[in-house]
């Protein structure tokens, strides 16, 4: 299904509310990558992120009457997605341990580009990547969410505050707490 240029999100929401699955398909196409990566930041596993993000879209469609066409769709959708991911992590026993042992869900983009010709540095970068992943896994849910939104989704403070419906000051305080925790985790493991 290809995205139609010029069609507004509001139109797609209104058509979805009339039961047009094709319109909802366009919304899915617009946000599927963002939803997948947001879930990946929560659960750290590609398969689970794929499954949870799809489940969130199914629930969003079932609750389509509650979408406000005058508000951004993703902000509303994100509440469903994060609740699913929180519940998933709660239900997954010892999820932190599993997250630490999960297949890599981050990649060292800058380091890989710089160190391709230096195997020793490459090994160091792979080790660092693993430690960052483990450090992030050891954060509390809320700190982890803020850090992931800032660092890997590259959102501005204002955007994070809108998405989570919290003041900008709270975003910054949680980010500070997350980074301090991560700094300590990296020092301990290094």
């Amino acid at each position, binding site marked *: 299904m290809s995205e139609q240029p010029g069609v507004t999100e509001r139109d797609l929401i209104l058509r979805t509310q009339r039961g047009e699955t094709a319109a909802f398909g366009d919304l*899915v196409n617009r946000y599927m990558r963002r939803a997948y990566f947001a879930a990946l930041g929560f659960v750290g596993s590609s398969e689970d992120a794929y499954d949870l993000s799809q489940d969130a879209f199914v629930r969003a469609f079932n609750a389509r009457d509650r979408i406000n066409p005058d508000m951004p769709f993703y902000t509303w959708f994100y509440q469903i997605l994060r609740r699913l991911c929180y519940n998933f992590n709660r239900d997954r026993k010892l999820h932190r341990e599993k997250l630490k042992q999960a297949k890599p869900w*981050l990649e060292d983009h800058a380091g890989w580009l710089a160190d391709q010709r230096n195997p020793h540095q490459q090994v160091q970068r792979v080790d660092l990547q693993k430690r960052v992943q483990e450090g992030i896994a050891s954060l509390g849910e809320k700190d982890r969410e803020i850090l992931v939104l800032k660092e890997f989704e590259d959102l501005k403070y204002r955007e994070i505050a809108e998405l989570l419906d919290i003041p900008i000051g709270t975003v910054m305080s949680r980010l*500070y707490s997350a*980074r301090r925790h991560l700094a300590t985790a990296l020092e301990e493991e290094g």
Partner: protein
Amino acid sequence: MNSQEEQVRLWMMAALDDEISVEDRRSFEAALAADADLKHEWTRLCQVKEVTKSMRYRRPPEEIWDRYWLSIYNRFERGIAWILVSIGAVVTTGYGLWYTMGEIWRDSEIALPLRLAIFALVLGGAVLLISVCREKFRLWRKDPYREVTR
């Protein structure tokens, strides 16, 4: 942590993420110059920022996006199919029970006390089932935390 320290932490985050105003940056740099511990913390957090900045999400194979919507659509279809199967199962089971009860009642070869006992068993089971379902439904409706992440 007092409010001045809290303010410096917030400036620190804003400076790291390049969301600080010129005026606040000036105040922040003055605070850094005056406090060695703060400067040490700033260096640590800059290192963390440097590391996380170089990382990104691992990209999945592009093919998964081609079948993403189709997979969601299949879930819709299966959801509808499950509803239909459930309705069908409830109706056919109910009819089967009703029919069997009628047959037993009309069968004069089965002793009356046994027929009554079978009726009592089935009726009791049905009442129990309805009662449990009703209780669960009421609990669910009144649960103020049903939408809350526990």
